[in-house]
């Protein structure tokens, strides 16, 4: 029987190596790909994944079930670790050659199947946003920039950054629910 994420997480925190490995297998590719999406750098992405699992293993991060899904929490921890890593490196990391980086999404775990479905929907929804909205989401969410950096990059007043970020994200949410609805009806 498939154990719940939270059960594996708790066992991993109780120093159960097997549980840690199961949890690792379940999320390695998603966390690695997400961190790579942010850093464009395989070595940093690997460091981030190691950092995340170290935090789990050494009980530096605790998951509170009342605050949402384990996977969302794990992705937040990964994103924060990635932003930390980017800040430590200071430099903008180089881009890897596309041919080295991109591979087919070969779904094998339940998480990866969910990922594949969501991935297409989210990308379609993002594609429907204006260029400015896409840019601000990129800078805010994937580059993890500070408000002042975003203001500088987009050449907009500091005071307007928050409003624009929220607006772009809300547009994304609307587009996404349209995509979802259509997907549900067409049932492709």
């Amino acid at each position, binding site marked *: 029987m498939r154990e719940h994420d939270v059960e594996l997480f708790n066992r991993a925190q109780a120093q159960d190596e097997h549980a*840690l490995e199961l949890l690792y297998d379940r999320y390695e590719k998603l966390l690695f790909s997400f961190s790579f999406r942010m850093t464009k750098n395989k070595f940093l992405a690997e460091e981030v994944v190691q950092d995340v699992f170290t935090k789990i*293993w050494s009980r530096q991060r605790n998951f509170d079930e009342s605050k949402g899904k384990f996977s969302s929490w794990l992705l*937040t921890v990964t994103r924060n670790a990635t932003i930390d890593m980017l800040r430590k490196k200071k430099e903008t990391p180089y881009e890897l050659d596309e*041919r080295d980086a991109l*591979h087919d999404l*070969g779904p094998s775990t339940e998480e990866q199947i969910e990922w594949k479905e969501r991935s297409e929907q*989210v990308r379609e929804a993002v594609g429907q946003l204006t260029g400015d909205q896409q840019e601000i989401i990129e800078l805010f969410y994937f580059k993890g920039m500070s408000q002042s950096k975003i203001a500088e990059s987009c050449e907009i007043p500091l005071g307007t950054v928050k409003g624009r970020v929220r607006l772009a994200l809300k547009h994304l949410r609307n587009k*996404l629910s349209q995509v979802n609805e259509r997907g549900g009806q067409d049932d492709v």
Partner: protein
Amino acid sequence: MMSNTCDLLLDYFNNQLTKEQEEEFELHLLECEECQEELAELQQLTEDLPYSSEAIDPPSGMKQRVLSNVINGTNTPETEPEPEKQEQEKVTSINEWNEPSRSKKKSWYKPLIAAVLTLSLIGNGAALIYLSNDEETSPTTKPEETEPSLDTIQKMLSLSPSEGVNAEATAMMIEQNNKTNLVIQASDLPELEGEETYQVWVLEDGKPYRAGTFVSNANGNGAVSYLMNYQGKHQFDTIAITKEPNANSQKPKGDILLSSPI
């Protein structure tokens, strides 16, 4: 109405605050309902975004490396990470070569020195090199503005290609904080396939020691900076580059492509 503290919300979400600011904001969060709601909203609105990432295959051996590092107690993060230990064993790749067409011989080592310096300033021995294009070079990384006196070049060598090989490579040993950094730059490298990597070795009486792993970019260029940190005293006599089936070879498996006596 927004107080100044409310304005920190985005930067809090993006992990951009100092420790003090973060604590201040967390205290504020306890009593500001507006911020609580906005934070929850941000979390909810961004929840789907990670899934838009393209799936990338993790590098070979990553699981083993990560799990053994996690379990075998490199368990003191949050404090200063242990430099050099595991980070030097990394494959380096570059994308854009710095102005390869003109005055290559003269200019190539500048960005490398800058890279080595940057690494030492970060206090982190990761063997990663960031080569920036001239236009993009920010003031902090301009080679001219770094301290040239920090490092001394001990040796510069040109590696000779083996028969039938067309590649070129240069090795430089830079002394840095009483340690030696080996910087390799290579061009016209044959293309790699699959998990293959280029491996640098230093040899002492025929015994090889790993000295940096890298991959070439689409133009056949590659570079790596490696901190030579071996147990005991060594008198290396040869430096060589081989093509290996993957990044894990402890002994050379491929033929020597380039080499030079030290």
